[in-house]
């Protein structure tokens, strides 16, 4: 057999096997984390639906209603909240979302609020100003952080520091498919469907609808942010699981290939030895 010694092949098989063990373990960890993240998404979903419908009801009930949160101004300065992961080895998860945001950013002046180590590094390397880098660990951001972010951003928005706030996250479509997306947080958009506003007109608001609106909007944004974070986390785990699954499969293929080579080399060595013995006698 030409050149390749059996020892060399054996070493490669062994190293491939240890790689496979690692990817297999990572896949299993990601799968269990994914289950938890999915449960979190379904737990938090009713909260948004109720909040969203309450806000839309207020907007539907009074058409002439005005609030600085609704005002559409020409956008000069945008804020992007970018949710990415803390670690790599998750397929295209980090690069997809970062690329999408980066492409969108070129249109206007932009500031970012990166969440997750990968996002922080990405924008730092490209010298894009960041509002704060304190959320470098996406796994540590909890619901309290989401609410303090949203309160801070709401007051910054009212002070006209930004004309638009968008959040970039990865939507969790299914275990096999996750799409990066950006969504506008502020100004709020009015839904144009006119449902059954009949009973709504007799709604009593504590104080008045505008002050209720003003105090629930930051809460609502915090909720959306938390939802986006949950979706992103689930997507990250799903992407990692898929990436590790294919890595394990690749390792399997390579091991099969190498084993074949190993057996051939061994056979060749035996054949040669026999030939030598026969020739020598």
């Amino acid at each position, binding site marked *: 057999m030409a050149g390749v010694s059996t020892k060399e092949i054996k070493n490669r098989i062994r190293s491939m096997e240890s790689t496979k063990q690692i990817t297999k373990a990572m896949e299993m960890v990601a799968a269990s984390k994914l289950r938890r993240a999915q449960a979190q998404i379904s*737990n*938090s979903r*009713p*909260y948004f639906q*109720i*909040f969203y419908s*309450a806000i839309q009801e*207020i907007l539907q009930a009074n058409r002439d209603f005005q609030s600085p949160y609704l005002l559409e101004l020409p956008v000069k300065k945008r804020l992007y909240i970018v949710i990415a992961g803390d670690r790599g080895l998750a397929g295209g998860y980090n690069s997809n979302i970062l690329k999408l945001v980066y492409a969108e950013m070129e249109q206007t002046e932009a500031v970012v609020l990166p969440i997750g180590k990968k996002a922080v590094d990405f924008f730092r390397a490209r010298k894009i100003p960041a509002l704060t880098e304190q959320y470098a660990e996406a796994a540590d951001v909890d*619901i309290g952080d989401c*609410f*303090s972010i949203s309160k*801070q951003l709401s007051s910054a928005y009212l002070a006209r520091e930004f004309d638009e706030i968008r959040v970039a996250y990865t939507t969790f479509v299914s275990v096999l498919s996750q799409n990066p997306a950006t969504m506008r947080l502020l100004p709020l958009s009015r839904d144009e469907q006119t449902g059954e506003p009949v*009973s*709504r007109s*007799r*709604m*009593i*608001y*504590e*104080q008045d*609808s505008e*002050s*209720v609106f003003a*105090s*629930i909007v930051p*809460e609502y944004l*915090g*909720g959306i942010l*938390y*939802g986006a974070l949950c979706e992103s986390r689930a997507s990250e785990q799903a992407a990692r699981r898929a990436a590790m699954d294919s890595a394990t499969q690749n390792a399997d293929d390579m091991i099969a290939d190498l084993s074949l080579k190993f057996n051939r080399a061994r056979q060749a060595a035996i054949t040669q030895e026999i030939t030598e013995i026969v020739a020598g006698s």
Partner: protein
Amino acid sequence: MTPFPLKIVTPDGLIFDGQAEKLIVRTTNGDVAILARHINYVAALGMGRAVVVADGKRRTAACIGGMLSVVDGEVTLVPTTFEWADKIDANRAELSLQRANKVLQDKNSTNTDIRLAEARLHRALVRKNVASYK
């Protein structure tokens, strides 16, 4: 007393879903009590003690932020956090209180720090207060 359907939903999941006889919560304007056949109503919540009376049993909780709505007799409470008195970690509240006090006494704290610390102090006080009801 006539019961009414009550739902309590937080971002962490459904806390309560069933019939209740009375609900007391703190809105931004003070405490309100909701009984059956209340008119359609929406209020933003403040931070404070909430009381749910269901099946004649009275349960106390710390309820912070969010919104209360009554639509066609169905009461929905969507707070940011909602913890029953017996689930509150009083030690954690105490620690959080001390941490907030430290920031407030520090002369070098920035405005945002002070605002966050005040909110934290408020939450910690509510939790400590509610925890004493269990």
